[in-house]
């Protein structure tokens, strides 16, 4: 599947049949609110991810869909019928568990046959399906092995086959790649996508790894502290985060305090880093004088000694640090008001500014995003750095200098 195909598929998603509807669902454990008023719909054939730091409620939501937890309020509908109080064994969804939870006393074959046998499928059909699934996950030669005799990646695939063999209405995956090493994880990401294409089943994928979510998902629900912060395609979430948390959690971002100065048709005038800018975004959530946050992705920034394109928005700063990172050079700038900015520019061979240089940092006007909440409003922005184990860790605060 190419990128363009995927982009074409996106608009049609909303017309597809709804498989799972999360209708105003909350879950409270004692006095701890795990999930608060979650509302979203997952469509047939969709690869849907729930992304967020640990404790954000994504796993609880998944467990409610699976039937291991009951919503405190709200309803979960599976193909239109309310299953909120239906026990797990009567729900046509299956789960791939975090540590796979393979039955250690059964062979690979028996593990996969568990569901069909429990559903009392006849023997021939069970065997046909199990063998088919062994082929799908490419484990035909391992049918007689016990799970402990398999590698992590193989166990992962058995877990997948064991769930998919039931042809569920949705497959729930609870951080299924967390236990694998980086190389294997990247391989399995592609493998998962391939399998999903082959079987055409709705996948609901829980992860705390933003890169994984971006790579694999049709849509992502970013969750934080029990709330769904934003739902959208990877592109939407990356380019147009709805708030500071999402901006900081997905990728890296320059986040600067901004004050609204006025509204124009299709634009908002804000003051950022001592300059007044027009953001091509009519955000009525903010009135004149309100504080918001202005975001620019580091890779959307240009760093030049001579401004080459007058049409871009620009600030002037001093290069504090320059780090060669292979394909890009990472610049850390100090702006006149003391704020910091981070920029990733292509690693050209010549003409790159060096520390101490005064430079223009600029961006195309569609690269700037005005976020409605003040930039220090979300405490999670600083904590998600540690919870995010992705190799391209997010960097929410440009002020924080890197070693």
């Amino acid at each position: 599947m190419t990128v363009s195909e995927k982009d074409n598929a996106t608009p049609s998603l909303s017309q597809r049949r709804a498989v799972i509807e999360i209708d105003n669902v909350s879950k409270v454990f004692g006095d701890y609110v795990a999930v608060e008023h979650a509302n979203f719909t997952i469509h047939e054939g969709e690869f849907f991810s729930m992304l967020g730091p640990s404790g954000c409620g994504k796993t609880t939501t998944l467990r409610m869909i699976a039937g291991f937890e009951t919503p405190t309020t709200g309803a979960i509908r599976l193909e239109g019928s309310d299953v909120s109080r239906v026990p797990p064994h009567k729900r046509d969804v299956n789960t791939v568990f975090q540590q796979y939870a393979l039955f250690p006393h059964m062979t690979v074959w028996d593990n996969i046959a568990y569901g069909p046998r429990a559903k009392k499928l006849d023997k021939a059909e069970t065997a046909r399906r199990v063998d088919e699934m062994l082929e799908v996950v490419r484990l035909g030669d391992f049918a007689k092995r016990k799970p402990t005799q398999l590698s992590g990646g193989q166990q992962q695939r058995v877990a997948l086959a064991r769930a998919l063999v039931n042809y569920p209405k949705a497959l729930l995956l609870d951080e299924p790649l967390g236990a694998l090493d980086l190389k294997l994880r990247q391989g399995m990401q592609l493998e998962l996508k391939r399998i999903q294409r082959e079987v055409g089943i709705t996948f609901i994928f829980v992860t705390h790894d933003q890169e994984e979510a971006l790579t694999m998902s049709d849509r992502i629900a970013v969750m934080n502290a029990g709330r769904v912060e934003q739902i959208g395609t990877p592109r939407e979430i990356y380019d147009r985060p709805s708030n500071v948390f999402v901006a900081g959690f997905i990728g890296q971002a320059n986040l600067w305090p901004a004050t609204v100065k006025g509204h124009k048709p299709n634009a908002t005038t804000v003051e950022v880093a001592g300059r007044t800018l027009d953001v091509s975004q009519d955000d009525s959530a903010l009135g004149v004088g309100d504080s918001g946050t202005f975001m620019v992705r580091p890779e959307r920034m240009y760093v030049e000694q001579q401004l080459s394109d007058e049409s871009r928005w620009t600030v002037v700063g001093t290069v504090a640090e320059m780090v060669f990172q292979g394909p890009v050079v990472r610049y850390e700038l100090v702006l006149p008001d003391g704020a910091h900015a981070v920029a990733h520019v292509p690693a050209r061979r010549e003409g790159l500014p060096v520390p101490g240089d005064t430079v223009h940092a600029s961006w195309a006007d569609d690269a700037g995003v005005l976020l409605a909440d003040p930039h220090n409003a979300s405490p999670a922005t600083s904590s998600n750095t540690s919870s995010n184990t992705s190799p391209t860790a997010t960097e929410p605060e440009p002020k924080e200098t890197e070693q």
Partner: protein
Amino acid sequence: MAGESSLRKGRKAPYALIGPGMLWLILFFLVPMWTLLRIALSEKPNAFLPDYELTWRWANFSDAISRFQPELIRSFTYAGVATILCILIGYPLAYFVAFKAGRFRALLLGLIMVPFFTSFLIRTIAWQTILGQDGPALGVLKALSLVSVTDAIGLTSNGAFLNTPQAVIGGLTYNFVAFMILPIYVSLEKIDPRLMEAARDLYSTPAAAFRKVVLPLSLPGVFAGTLLTFIPAAGDYINAELLGNVKTGMIGSQISKLFLKESNYPEAAALSFIFMAIITVGVLVYAKILGTEELSA
């Protein structure tokens, strides 16, 4: 040369490591067993003197079997029933402690163990008082006029708890149930709760999930518990002496009487050997049936 000698040392190292264990086995298992076997095949010219002569008298075995057949059968029957009761009582208890007790787990385990800090003997004697004619157990039954009912279902005999086979089996069950609970608990506690969720997720009812996943995974614990319960229960005779009657004697007291009262070492040794042989065969068959990998592999 140096390389060769270090190579040789390397080959010897494993033997050196199992040395102490082998020595232990030889000294405290093989030698006593050999001695016991020799005595079992001997004759004592004078019962009161310590000397015996190895005469390969195999009749010691047949004599012992024909004389003590009822006690042998009784020992294994009582121990078997007690072991089954231990499983029926111990398994649910262990299950509850392992999966449902939450933060009370340590407390409950402690409570299960506490009675066993008291001497085996004193606990059994306490049961005499509890089960006695004027004891609280029968008192409750009498107050509720249930004695005829318990007589009918075989819980009591002629209106008595004490000095009945039921009391002996009950005493064995009580005294050994902890040895059933603990291994089962350990094996249950090792089971990842997600396996049960996985089974539920794969269309199993709670009962089916238990049957197909939890039970098979806890069988090693049941196996260990059965050995720890059945073997000492079969050899026990304190319960039979204190809680039973003249018709409930078990094999342990017969061996003891042969040795101490009749000074008949050869027949006592033969009877011990028969008892051990039956248990060993029984354990092997049981291991085969249960398919415990550790033992059958």
